[in-house]
Each structure stands twice: as C-alpha cells, then as structure tokens.
C-alpha cells in the first residue's frame, strides 16, 4: 500500500499523496515508514528533473509536498521518544537570493532526522541570522544560496556572526548551487554539503561532537 504514496508524490498528485498519508496514519503505519516513502519519491522526482522530464516548478512542488507530509506526521513522530541526542539547526537562504527548493529539501531531511529546525525563509539579511542565533540558540547554522552572487552574501553573513562574537557558538554549513570546498573557504564556513543528505551527516557529526 505504501508504494501508492511513492507514486502519488512522484507523479505530482498532491491531493492523493496527502490523502494517502492520512490513510497510512489511520492504519498506524510508523511515521518513519511514511518518511522513507516520501524520500524514495523525492529521489524519483530528482532523477526525472536530472533527465529533463520534470521542470523546476515540479521539483518545487515535490519539495513542498515533503514539508506538508512532515507537518502531518510530526505530532505522531513526537510521541516516539528520541533515543539519540538531537539539536537545533537554524537555516535560511542568504540575502539577495530567493531560491529555496534545495533549502526546503534540507529542512525536510533534517526534520525527518529529528533535528529541531528554524527556517528563516529566503533573502535573509545577516541581522536576522544574528537575532535568531541569540534567541533560538542553535548548534548549527545552515546557509543556503543558489546564485554565485549568494557566495558573497554567505561570506558577509559569516563575517557578521564573527563580528557579533557568536562564531564560536555555532558550526556553520553552506550549500546550494555550485558550492564546493573553494567556496567553503571563501565564505569562511566550517563545511559545505553537496546535497541534502550531506547536510544531515554534517549536522549529526557536529551535534554529537559538541
């Protein structure tokens, strides 16, 4: 039955996918199973985008379906005790950039992995990141950006964090577009993630290590 969910998401049948999730929850299917199906579907969508079948609006809708599904299963997930230490992650697309498909997928993956995520949205100025670091007190800050112009905004944001004396309080990861080790060094981050799963792996490593 669960494969119906995979197919619904992969075929952009939003309503059917959400109904399917409700049905699965009514049937007491484990939230982890639902999220695994969602991730399997996301992989199919990713492949269809790579091979040119799907366009950006479809990739974006799939990302949003992931977030909606996360919201639906969250109350159920909260009932399961957390067995490993998880932490807080602040995420946002840096100033001047409004792209959020990748960021939303990373947020989803982090939530699936039981991190507490505060997503500041897109075109987030450094001041907003500073304010949120002070109030939310995350262990990890994730800066996203698609445009190469965003690399400067990542650098400026990290400099602002440094300038505010908060750099030692957080680990910083960057991701999106053509981010690589060179950009990581340029921006002054601690690491970059080449995809959403890499972001999750970094967060796990850092938060356990802290």
């Amino acid at each position, binding site marked *: 039955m669960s494969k119906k969910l995979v197919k619904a998401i992969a075929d*952009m049948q939003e309503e059917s996918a959400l109904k399917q999730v409700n049905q699965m929850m009514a049937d007491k299917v484990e939230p982890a199973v639902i999220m695994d199906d969602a991730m399997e579907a996301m992989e199919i969508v990713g492949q269809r985008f790579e091979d*040119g079948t799907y*366009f*950006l*609006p*479809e990739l*974006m*809708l799939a990302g*949003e379906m992931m977030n909606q599904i996360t919201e639906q299963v969250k109350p159920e997930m909260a009932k399961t005790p957390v067995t490993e230490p998880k932490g807080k992650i602040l995420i946002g697309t840096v*100033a*001047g*950039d*409004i*792209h*959020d498909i990748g960021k939303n997928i990373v947020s989803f993956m982090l939530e699936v992995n039981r991190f507490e995520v505060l997503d500041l949205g*897109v*075109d987030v100025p450094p001041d907003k990141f500073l304010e949120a670091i002070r109030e939310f007190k995350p262990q990890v800050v994730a800066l996203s950006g698609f*445009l*190469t*112009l965003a690399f*400067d905004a990542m650098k400026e944001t990290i400099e602002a964090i440094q300038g505010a004396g908060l750099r030692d309080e957080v680990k910083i990861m960057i991701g999106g*577009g*053509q981010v*690589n080790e*060179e*950009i990581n060094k*340029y921006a002054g981050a601690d690491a970059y993630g080449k995809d959403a799963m890499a972001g999750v792996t970094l967060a796990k490593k850092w938060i356990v290590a802290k």
Partner: protein
Amino acid sequence: MSAERTKIIACSLVIEEIVPYLPSGMDCQTLDSELHVNTDVLRRSLQEAIDASTSSAEIILLGYGLCSQAVVGLQANGCTLVIPKVDDCIALFLGSEEAYKAQFKVAPGTYYLTKSWIESGRSIFDEYNILVDRYGESRALSLMRNFLKHYTRLALINTGRHELEFCRDYCLRTADRFGLRYEEIPGSSSLFERIVQGPHDNDFVIVQPNEIVTFRDFK
C-alpha cells in the same frame, strides 16, 4: 591585440550583442545556450572549443561570465584567456556587475528576460506550455505561480540595439498571467563592446597562458 590572432567563443544568448562590435578578421564561435543546463557539460564544451582554437589564436575571449562556475577550471594552452568579471550574462546585458548588484537591491525576486532569451524559446515561461499539456491549464498555472511565489518582477533588459515591441508584448502578457510586475530596465553594450575591442581593464579576468581559471579571479 591583433584581431587576426584573437578569437571569441560566446554563448548563443549574447552573440547578437557582440557581433556589431566584432573587429574585422576576428574569428568568432558560438556555443548553444542549452549547454548551461549542466555546468559540467558547459565546462567540457568550452574546454573543447578552447583546445580547438589554441593553434590559431594568441588570445581567446569568452562571451560568458562565471556562469555557475562553468568557467572555473578552464585553461588555454599557450593562449591568454579573457573573461568578463561578472556572475552571469544578466550582468553582461546590464553593462556591469555593479548594475546587476544594484538590481538585486531593487528586487531580488526578479526574473530577467532579453530579446535573445525570449527568441531562444527556453525560458521557464516556455516550459509552462509543456506543463499545460501535462496537467491542464489550471494546475499548470498553479504550479507556475507557486514556483514564482518569491518573484515579484519580470524585467526586460533593453540594450538599446533592437526593436523590442514584440518582446514588450510578450513580457506584459507573461507578467500579467503569472502575477508579476513588469518593468523594462536599461541595459548597456559596454561589456559586449569592450570584450572584443578592449580595453581589458579591471572589469575582465585575464588568465595567462596555461594558467587555470579560478573562482577567486572573479572576486
């Protein structure tokens, strides 16, 4: 720079703007803009075009910007490479990286179009027609509006060299359909002219023969 010993390799989206300034005798090659879909493919195609040009040229000009880092890693055997120091072709059409950054301050959520981009038939708005075939009009429209939710403006860049009446009509219609504010913004031919005629000042990345293009060259 001797025109006979200089070659320009340019993207099909910008070539039309460069041709009026092309010195007589300068070799010119165009690469399909579609190559941008995959950064590695674009980088490979550019490197092949460069490699095929090094025996006849001393200077190779690229009608590209950083283009999602597609130019990073390029190298010309025995030739100097010259590339405009801009993030992408929007800055080329606007005339400078500063003008591009200024537009970001005005409205970061801007979808830019140019005459060449509209004529290429490869903008997101052309993909909309395929989405209509796939999902029907109402769902395709909602997919597009969702995709464009952080966009506020559709900007047509006018470099002043072309009759733009049909582009204006197209952009007005498109902006209206997807709930965007339409604006025509002034472009410039400055970088298009200077890439082929010089001077290659601080607005250009100059990579010495056999050296590799790096991201830092653009900063």
